[in-house]
């Protein structure tokens, strides 16, 4: 196990961009975890004069927004929101996606037909509108945003899992397992899944990035949870001030971009490290 891990780490490290991405992700996680120590008070508190530009007042390194709230504090707490939603939504999406995709490919026939129609159904509905509808129905709470994002992002995972399963389903080792009389579940999850998993994991890591973007769009449109700090909401709030104080939009946007970028780079690194095709190159 250990040599494999080291081997994996070495392959991952070969992609320097991925290492930068990983460091960035660690940085964001660090900020998110440390937020309550750096800023012990509620980040949504009004603490100073409104619209102080960044790097002007050392108390507010990233300036204040239109209400006089500390942008740095909101960014730090926003990292918690962003990562939490990204991670939970990705887990939700991965679980749904793998289940649907695996079952569809393995059983084939009408089950495949049904499940793929089901997948198509979710792909057909414009995803962002679907998220907005769900949030509008369930309410503006963090967990509902998470569920909504998970529910619209699982379809690519299902399709990929199905494709991987399809290509593996007729391989010799699976036929051998069948001949040995293994149960369907065991073949699916014990034998095929581990072989199909690497690309799925890569995709899941990219789904985190996608979920972060979704959350920011929902908050930008004013439908996020008002009780927590969010990068997207900060952009939405700052929008009316783009002529006078465009930094209010720019700063959280940069935070979103760097986080998504870092997650994507890590995903690429994982792809390099896990994708057997590139392994021998």
């Amino acid at each position, binding site marked *: 196990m250990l040599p494999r891990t080291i081997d994996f780490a070495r392959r991952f490290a070969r992609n320097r961009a991925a290492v930068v991405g990983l460091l960035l992700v660690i940085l964001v996680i660090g900020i998110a975890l440390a937020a309550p120590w750096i800023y012990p008070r*509620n980040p*949504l*508190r*009004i603490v100073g004069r*409104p*619209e102080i530009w960044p790097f002007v007042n050392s108390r507010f390194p990233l300036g204040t927004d*239109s*209400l*006089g709230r500390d942008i740095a504090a909101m960014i730090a707490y926003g990292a918690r929101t962003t990562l939490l939603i990204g991670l939970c939504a990705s887990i939700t999406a991965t679980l749904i996606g793998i289940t649907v995709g695996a079952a569809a490919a393995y059983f084939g026939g009408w089950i495949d037909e049904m499940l793929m129609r089901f997948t198509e159904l979710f792909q057909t509905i414009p995803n962002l509108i679907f998220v907005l509808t769900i949030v*509008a129905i369930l*309410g*503006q709470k963090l967990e509902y945003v998470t569920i909504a994002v998970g529910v619209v992002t699982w379809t690519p995972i299902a399709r990929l899992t199905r494709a991987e399963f399809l290509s593996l389903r007729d391989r010799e080792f699976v036929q051998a397992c069948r001949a040995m009389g293994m149960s369907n579940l065991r073949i699916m999850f014990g034998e095929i899944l581990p072989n199909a998993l690497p690309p799925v994991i890569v995709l899941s890591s990219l789904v985190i990035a996608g979920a972060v973007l979704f959350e920011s769009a929902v908050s930008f449109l*004013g*439908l996020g949870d*008002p*009780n927590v700090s969010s990068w997207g909401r900060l952009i939405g*709030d700052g*929008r*009316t*001030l*783009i*002529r*006078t*104080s465009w930094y209010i939009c720019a700063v959280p946007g940069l935070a979103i971009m760097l986080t998504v970028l870092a997650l994507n780079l890590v995903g690429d690194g994982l792809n390099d490290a896990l994708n057997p095709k590139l392994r021998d190159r």
Partner: protein
Amino acid sequence: MSRFSRRDFLMTTAGAALASRLSGPAFAATEAPKRGGTLLATWGGFEPQSLFVPPGGGSSPYFTSTKVIERLVRLTVDLKFEPVLAVDIKPAEDFRSYLIKLREGVTWHDGQPFTADDVVFNVLEYWKPISAGVSLDALDSAEAVDPLTVLLKFKAPVPEFFLKSVLAGKSGLVIPKHIYAGSNIITNPINNTPIGTGPFKVKEWVRGSHVEYLRNEKYWNPSLPYLDRLVIRWWQDPASRSAAFEANQLDIGVFNPVPMPDVPRLTSGGKFIAETKGYSNSAWITTIEFNQRRDIFKKREVRQALMQAIDRQFISDTIFFGRAHPSIGAIPSSNAIFFTKDVQDYPFDPKKAAKMLDGAGYPVKSGSRFGLNLVSAGWFEENVKIGQYLKQAFEDIDITVDLAVPDRATSLKRIYSDYDYDVAVSNNSGSIELIPSTTQYYTTDGIVKGAAFRNATGYSNPKLDEIVAKMAVETDEPKRIALGKDFDRLVALEAPLLPMVDLEPVTIARSDVRNHSTTADFMGESWAELWLDR
């Protein structure tokens, strides 16, 4: 403001006002209006669902329909009624009937003549059942005496100012009988291309973009309108409107068209002016409402304490960028007739608030006095920030707050249908006349589950109901004004729901747009007298 002076005024100014319409009140003596040109206009909100929404439909269809459809009278900025389609409205001695004289030679856009039959149709089929609601409860009958005279009869005395307010208000639009008779007024497809007697005719409505009006060549006042063409266009965000002004794509915008911080920048060069007149008959306020169905808020001291915990100057200065001021009592200060300063005031004093809560039996226990659900109606951008500020303000006096800022639909449902809130932040726009637009937030008969913008707090006080009932039939103006002030004093003391701030909406216009903002509800004016100095 005696009854006689106003009536005299209306009679004597019937002709004078007509003259002033020709030259316009604001620049009457100095400049002769120029004819022609296209005016590009907008307002600080979205496209209407339909150009004309018979039951009301909010500010946006009101804005688009009033350029086409006129009323009998209008209210000027200095609160005088001026004739439009009616040249005179005269009460009988007992105020139980009114005689309305109509203007001669008015035609609808399709060439049909405008007559007393049209007005009777409006009173009986449109205003009473659809638009005016309880305002015309006392109406008994309406009949055409001759083709240009209408007689209205009432079951009880109706104050003159009240009736004229209804006729000059949002519910008094006059629609053509020959188009609407026999159809469902609300769903008639003509509402998308309305027909009226007004100075502008609808040419084309491009959904999602703009509506274009052309000059009505057969307008009853042959010298009006001055403009050849009027275009109302919609943008979804204020910053774009600001840019459109600078790009010469916009001449006038009503009701806060641009972000507040942009106002000084736009006006500093002299190319644009900011005008705050023209909003007094549609005075917007931001209210805080305490749900009386919760035991905590049944205590008056708790409501009063919470009022004192709010720094309303901060809301005015920071959230509204100075385009608002702390409210005094329930009646906006822009209401020159009924406003009074002589009411219970709630200056910002969190220490006193905390003391009052201690006294009311809600001391701090393990960090919190009690928890409350705060619902801030998400239809205005500012309400989001107000919600966040109130959460902080209440937490400062050790109240735990769970904030929700639901979208428009959910806000309406939670506040006005389900009463699912402890404290709510909402808005309303009141007319100068208090009944019913202001009073229905407080009276017992204002409690109607599911009917929005009414008494949602469940507050009920027989003493208050009595004052309002007296006011409804009091025809002596000074006595009526005194009753209005009694109403305000009682409401301010009880504080079941109070305005936190009075908004000061602003109109932005290019300086070469002349003769605007001359009526008490300029947005809903026909804009016939506007002209371009180009």
